């Protein structure tokens, strides 16, 4: 794609286990355009968070990046040294995590962390750092930002903590923000607020977002593009309307029909038969074939490559419906 900010190509990440090397990510491909919001959707365990961590090279020490490229504006992040990737973190690519309570250092105030990030990453003085912090907190619609700077994480509510996390991540105006299930740990009423806030800010700061979630509804409301992940691979990728209204992959269809809709007159919810494949002994060929009602012999033998449906809409399936 021409305007891609981030391009993940065939990313394979493995973990050593007592059963040998297990592939948690098995050829992930993603494209994220500038100033767009891409929703990365999948069930728990499909590898969404791992993909995010790979971009920033924050994987657990036992993980091995076995193959693939992560290209950020013409540079392969996987080729960078430790200090080079550290330069990127926070300044070009930043991350917001799922549970703000455990992701904030309990013994430092909000202000101390924010000032520290600004001083060390932007090389500005303390007074400027304080002003910039207050400005960012205000953007996140936090009341009384001067006071918040002096508070500790345990003195803030869940929603406030998440806003603070987002504020810290955006302090250096990164080009790409990775949000890993940013609202999952919050009350439903606050979820919508935070997501709307994220949408507004990234528009203002012209940041691209990789929004990770398991909730199709969130994708529908907030994202411009969607990528569906299953068992360590991306099975469908395209603009949100295309993917959700004209799903090409059987798994996507299954997900959509399993989601209850308002005014639906069904008695029972549709379920995708079977369960997520084990990583230790994965299915051959297409990972989804054991659960797929459209599977044919070829699906068992070969892995499908992405096929273009329409402009920008790709599906990895031999039997595109």
């Amino acid at each position, binding site marked *: 794609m021409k305007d891609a900010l981030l391009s993940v190509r065939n990313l394979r990440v493995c973990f050593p286990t007592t059963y040998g090397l297990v592939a948690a990510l098995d050829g992930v491909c993603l494209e994220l355009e500038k100033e767009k919001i891409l929703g990365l959707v999948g069930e728990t365990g499909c590898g969404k968070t791992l993909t995010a961590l790979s971009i920033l090279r*924050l994987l657990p020490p036992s993980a091995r990046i076995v193959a693939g490229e992560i290209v950020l504006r013409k540079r392969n992040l996987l080729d960078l040294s430790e200090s080079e990737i550290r330069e990127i973190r926070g300044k070009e690519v*930043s991350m917001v995590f799922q549970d703000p309570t455990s*992701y904030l250092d309990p013994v430092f105030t909000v202000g101390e962390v924010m000032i520290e990030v600004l001083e*060390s990453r932007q090389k500005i003085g303390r007074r400027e750092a304080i002003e910039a912090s207050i400005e960012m907190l205000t953007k996140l619609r936090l009341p009384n930002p001067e006071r918040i700077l002096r508070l500790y994480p*345990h003195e803030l509510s869940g929603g406030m903590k998440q806003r603070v996390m987002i504020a810290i991540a955006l302090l250096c105006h990164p080009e790409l923000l990775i949000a890993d299930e940013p609202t999952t740990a919050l009350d439903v009423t606050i979820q919508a607020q935070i997501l709307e806030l994220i949408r507004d800010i990234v528009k203002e700061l012209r940041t691209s977002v990789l929004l990770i979630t398991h909730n199709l509804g969130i994708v529908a409301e907030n994202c411009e593009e969607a990528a569906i992940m299953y068992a360590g691979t991306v099975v469908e990728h395209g603009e949100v309307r295309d993917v959700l209204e004209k799903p090409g992959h059987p798994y996507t269809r299954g997900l959509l029909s399993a989601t209850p809709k308002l005014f639906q007159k069904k008695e029972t919810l549709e379920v995708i038969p079977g369960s997520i494949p084990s990583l230790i002994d994965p299915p051959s060929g297409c990972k989804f074939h054991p659960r797929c009602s459209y599977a044919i012999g070829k699906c068992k033998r070969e892995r499908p490559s992405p096929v273009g449906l329409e402009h920008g809409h790709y599906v990895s399936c031999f039997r595109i419906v």
Partner: protein
Amino acid sequence: MKLPVYVLKRLTTVIPMLLGVSALVFFISHVLPGDPAAMIAGTGATYEQIAAIRIELGLDKPLYEQYLAYMRRLILEFDLGRSIYSHRPVVSDLLDYLPATFELVTVSMIVTVSVGILLGSMSATRKDGVVDHFSRTLASAGLAMPAFWLGLLLQILIAHRLGILPVTGRIDATVLMKYPITRITGIYLLDTLVTGNWIAFRSSVLHIAMPAIVLSFSSLSHVTRFVRTSLLEVLNDDYVRALKSYGLSERIVVYKHALRNAIIPTLTIVGLRYSYLLGGVFVIEKVFDWPGLGLYGLSSFIYLDFPSILGVTLVFALLRIILNLLVDLSYFFVDPRVRV
């Protein structure tokens, strides 16, 4: 909550503790077999002599009366009785010897905490490296080493053979004569520092080095191990990953953030170790001829100087309680979640 409230809350536990400990020691020493009067009188004493001593010590009255009389004198007049051996008020004796012990224990604790944190964090960050194996071996050794033996070995090696540090004592006698120390607190290191008495300061530092290191050795082992474990755990915490994602340097993340969090539970260990430190004082002071409560206590134990024995035990209990209180207070400064 505010600091004064916190302090007050902690203090309310101190009084019952002291009362309890004094009762405990009092009753144990009087309940156990052995006739103090007879032992004081010595072999060959006549019955009348023993009886006279018994009356003099008030040992003929019922136990609880003795205890009440003792406590009344203690609380109202700060009088712990008179030492049978030195014939001075026990309180004076205790105050005389207290500063030396306090100095020794405090310096030991400083050594323990600083070296422990240093070694522990280096072990954790370079896990299974040279420093890690070295400090873990050292820690294992420290837990098994008899303090008096280590002290003697160091005396042989460093003092006698190499002559780097003095063998015993708190300060060089000739130095003390030529550069007398004005007694403000009784703590030589402080008093000499404050009055600018550099020669005496240097001598005091040289003299306290070995006893403090030996005293701290076993606690050092505990603290090093604990800091290592604690830091390794903290490094797995979520917020460490978040801090890294902001691009902060390894050094800041580990030594500013992770270590700070890892130290909090370490304080508990430090508090626990104070008890052992205070016990170890007896042995160390004997080995190094350190004129503190340990040495004083030893002579009162050997001579069965009951008022002294009671006084020494009470003071040690009090010291332990106060030091624990200080550790408790430090929680307040180090962990913001406690201030709620």
